[in-house]
């Protein structure tokens, strides 16, 4: 017989609506708005928003054990497989030629990671634990998979806000970077033109590059092996030209499937109580700061190079060292042209940008090493 208890079950859903869950639904709507209307990396933010919405519906079976979102989380977040697979696809579409044509630009990538550590300190001051502080700092890598990978190891409970911050700010590059650049450079500096010297990069070099980078970084910073290894695996497949089918699969089918699953899984971690803390706000603010600091440091270091090279380096390309490939480089090019239509820095900026990509991963590994994660 259907008793009152059963009837009770029917209202269970409504009875379990909490103000937190309502707020979180609101958050998910905001994310959807940013993704769909504002075009903030919809590929990531829309699945994250959906996952957040579905996880915050009352008694959502999707986050119960064996619930689909939980399953996805265990499939690829716990073991970090999803961000790594996405990295394979990124490597398969990244051409490191501009960096190889001008290897000294590598150092600009290093400078572009400064924000990571500044932010870490600020986070400590705000009272975050060292592990949390490091995870927040990694937003300064301005690189999605690296942020997910590192915070997934050091502070999984912050995975949601950190991923959201990382990808939102990446999509804000065109808005955040120009003012930073202008603040840090004089009109005269921005007008500096750089010579274009194309050097043919042999196929051998292009194939050796991912191998050399993997072995060197992997040996010196074992914690960076998964990140650098997968990024370079994709690049090796691409440059080898011998496994077109796999290269395509990693950049298309695999990347798309994993992105959808990754987004849903991360969104499902953003559940009321945990998420609605002052901390989340701090993370957002600190992330933004990390970003700006990256840019400043990059530009400043480029100024040093410019001084050393006797005025041959346009300091703006330093701002491309923050990674966010190839957006950052494009933005630098645009700023340059706003003042001098005939100033073409794109190729140089791309070099610094590719360096930033590598440097971000290295920085991630160094951070993990210093935290003695799993050490």
């Amino acid at each position: 017989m259907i008793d009152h208890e059963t009837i009770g079950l029917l209202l269970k859903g409504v009875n379990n609506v909490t103000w937190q869950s309502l707020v979180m639904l609101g958050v998910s709507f905001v994310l959807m708005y940013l993704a769909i209307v504002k075009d903030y990396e919809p590929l990531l933010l829309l699945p994250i928003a959906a996952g957040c919405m579905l996880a915050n519906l009352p008694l959502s079976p999707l986050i119960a054990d064996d619930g689909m979102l939980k399953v996805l989380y265990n499939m690829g977040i716990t073991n970090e497989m999803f961000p790594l697979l996405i990295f394979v696809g990124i490597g398969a579409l990244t051409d490191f030629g501009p960096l190889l044509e001008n290897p000294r630009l590598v150092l600009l990538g290093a400078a572009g990671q400064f924000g990571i550590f500044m932010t870490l300190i600020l986070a400590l001051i705000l009272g975050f634990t060292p592990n949390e502080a490091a995870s927040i700092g990694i937003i300064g890598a301005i690189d999605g998979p690296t942020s997910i990978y590192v915070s997934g190891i050091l502070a999984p409970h912050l995975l949601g806000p950190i991923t959201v911050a990382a990808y939102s700010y990446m999509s804000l590059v065109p808005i955040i970077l120009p003012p930073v650049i202008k603040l840090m450079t004089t009109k005269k500096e921005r007008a500096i033109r750089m010579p274009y010297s194309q050097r043919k990069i042999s196929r051998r070099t292009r194939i050796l590059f991912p191998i050399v980078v993997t072995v060197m970084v992997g040996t010196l910073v074992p914690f960076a092996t998964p990140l650098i290894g997968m990024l370079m695996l994709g690049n090796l497949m691409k440059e080898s030209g011998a496994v077109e089918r796999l290269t395509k699969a990693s950049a298309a089918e695999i990347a798309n499937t994993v992105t959808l699953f990754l987004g849903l899984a991360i969104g499902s971690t953003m559940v009321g109580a945990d998420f609605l803390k002052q901390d989340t706000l701090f993370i957002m603010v600190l992330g933004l700061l990390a970003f700006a600091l990256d840019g400043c440091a990059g530009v400043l270091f480029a100024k040093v190079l410019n001084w050393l090279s006797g005025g041959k380096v346009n300091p703006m390309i330093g701002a491309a060292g923050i990674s966010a490939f190839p957006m950052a480089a494009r933005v630098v090019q645009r700023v340059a042209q706003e003042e001098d239509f005939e100033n073409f820095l794109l190729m140089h900026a791309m070099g610094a940008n590719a360096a930033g990509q590598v440097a971000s991963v290295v920085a991630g590994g160094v951070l993990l090493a210093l935290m003695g994660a799993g050490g």
Partner: protein
Amino acid sequence: MENLGWGLQMTVLGMGLVFALLALLWGLLTLVLALDKEPKAPQTAKEAIVEAERIAASADGAIGAQVPERPTVNGMPADLVAAIMIATLKHKTELRRQAAPFMRSYWPGSQLFASRWVATGRARQNSIWQARGK
């Protein structure tokens, strides 16, 4: 506030390591490149920008590579955009002609190859709802 001290150490040590590692990488790359002994051919501005745009465009296909918001296009002097576009497109069709197998391996019109500027525009004017939306 001993955490702070720790943080400072982290910064010094961390940035130091990052710089050291990338400097080492620089050295290794120079070594590898030495094997090539390719001459540095001078290049015109147009060539450089077109080549760079081609590379950037294909990287746009990566997950997380962001769409430059519309203004950027108008933000740039139209004539220059045009110039680049033409050059780029000439370059692309050229590539496309000989490289059909590779190029077509993405959804035609997908943003995996086409410049985001072109593609985004196309996407907008084509997406179904647009055809009927308000």
